[in-house]
């Protein structure tokens, strides 16, 4: 039976950060209920037993379901490498930071830095995500490096910075300066993308179904149909992430850049339908 955690009482807006990285299959799998209740959650400088914050039931820590708004809990699912984690509600900053495998479903919005330094697995956020989605770990030369992030809502500024590999799909809009310094990978946005997308892009693919204004350092070509996009759209739909019909019918104009740095990345913007 999957492990079920139910938040006893939403904490008052904390003045100290809550590190909930122990809410993760890697940490809880194989533990009995009593042991799970003793797993520490770090609030400021204090270790607080998980059992003080959550009602615990079930015994299979490979599949964890958490009930309750965790918007003040940081690093939920951090370093997750296997299993399945579902949060029925919001999660705070740095959810799925360093995620390496498994599936993490957030049935609500996520805070800033979701998927920071991610290197594998599937992160699905059924609400909006904050700024710095899939950001690099501070100081790291590379951002997201493998894995997939699917956002049913919109996301904020600076998403996919220095992204190296993997796929990010956003059903809504994306803020400014997306995919800044992107090195490779794919960023599919079915809404629009704010200004400055792909600045310093080396390689990689950005698709903005709702449009974006590519920087002058991107050179347009097309319009054309690109069969490889269908492969990715199919994979998204097979994973239960809907792809709008216009994305499949569209002819795309391909803007190659950022040529200011010799980059060979691309931004796809619809140029009509065929």
């Amino acid at each position, binding site marked *: 039976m999957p492990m079920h955690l139910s938040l006893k009482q939403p904490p008052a807006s904390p003045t100290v950060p809550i590190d909930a990285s122990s809410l993760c299959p890697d940490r809880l799998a194989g533990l009995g209920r009593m042991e799970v209740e003793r797993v520490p959650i770090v609030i400021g400088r204090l270790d607080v037993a998980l059992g003080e914050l959550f009602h615990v039931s079930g015994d299979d820590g490979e599949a964890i379901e958490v009930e309750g708004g965790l918007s003040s809990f940081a690093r939920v699912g951090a370093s997750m490498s296997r299993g399945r984690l579902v949060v029925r509600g919001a999660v705070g900053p740095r959810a799925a930071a360093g995620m390496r495998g498994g*599936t993490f479903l957030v049935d609500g919005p996520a805070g800033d830095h979701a998927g920071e330094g991610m290197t*594998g*697995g*599937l992160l699905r956020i059924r609400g909006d995500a904050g700024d710095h989605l899939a950001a690099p770990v501070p100081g790291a030369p590379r951002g997201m490096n*493998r*894995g*997939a992030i699917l956002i049913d809502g919109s996301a904020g500024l600076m998403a996919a910075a220095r992204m190296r*590999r*993997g*796929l990010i799909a956003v059903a809504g809009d994306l803020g400014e300066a997306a995919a800044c310094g992107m090195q490779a*990978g*794919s960023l599919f946005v079915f809404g629009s993308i704010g200004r400055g997308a792909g600045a310093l892009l080396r*390689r990689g*693919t950005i698709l903005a179904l709702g449009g974006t204004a590519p920087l002058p350092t991107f050179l347009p070509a097309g319009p*054309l*149909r*690109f*069969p*490889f996009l*269908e*492969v*990715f*759209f*199919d*994979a*998204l739909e*097979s*994973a239960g992430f809907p792809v709008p019909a216009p994305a*499949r019918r569209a002819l795309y104009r391909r803007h190659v850049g950022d040529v200011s740095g010799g980059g*060979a990345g*691309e931004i796809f913007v619809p140029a009509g339908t065929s």
Partner: protein
Amino acid sequence: MRVSGTLIEDTYAEAFTMRVSRLVITAGSERWAAIAARVMTGFATSVIGCGCEAGPEGPAPGRTPDGRPGVRVLVFARSAADLQEQLMRRVGQCVMTAASTACFDDLPSEETVRVGSLLRFFGDGHQVSKVLDAALAGAAPAALDDTAPPRERRFWRIPVMDGEFVVEDRFGVRKAVAGGNFLILGRDPEVTLAAAERAVQAIGKVPGVILPFPGGIVRSGSRVGSKYKKLIASTNSPYCPTLRRLVKTALPDDAAGALEIVIDGLSLEDVRRATAAGVRAACGDGILRVSAGNYGGKLGKHLIHLRPLLEESAG
């Protein structure tokens, strides 16, 4: 044993193990997918002289990786290295050159050979690689009917004059069964050919198999060995009507000759299923016997006994 009046000889076909890759060729229309598949599988009747055996596999895939019309193709060779060589040449020369096509792996496997990763250099540095992460690749159509663990899938986008040629980086390779066969012995050449054509049509509905010879039919069946030391195979003299008095013949007095159906398949079960369907379709008026080619168990380890097979498939 008789089927629709035709005698089924108490003998067996002898098939052997080869390596196979399965491709899906897609294009802007069914016509162009079929053209590419036909050209790619040309001159691929026998490993003896062609390096591989290949053919379009029916029926058509329900859904292709890029959602466009497509044709499945099976390519058989003696080894993974031979398969890589053949795929690189055939995909490069016959699929990439065909208007609007793309080419995908359709046989997830631990063992793979390089195809796109060799052809990409045609892009002269403008080729682009796209990777479908393992987190999503498991949900992609090619892997849906398989239990293989999801693996990362890399595609190469090679710029060509009508846009981009998309080809998968690596193609899966598995052991397979080739050389399944049966012989149709008829009263006259026209009736024999018509029976062979019925068999080809019936086998065309069986998934997982190909008939690598022209129109699915072989008229120059071979046997192992030759009087000439350089040759490993020579004409199947016992079934040649013009040699009836010169060699020990396998043709009954009233037979005008024989035609052979050769079947390669993903598994022994696929070849058996196709053999049963083909034999049943071939039997009928004017067809005296159905036999099979074997080499006394010296060539391959897969033996397909005709009578038990037909008894099982009738049940």
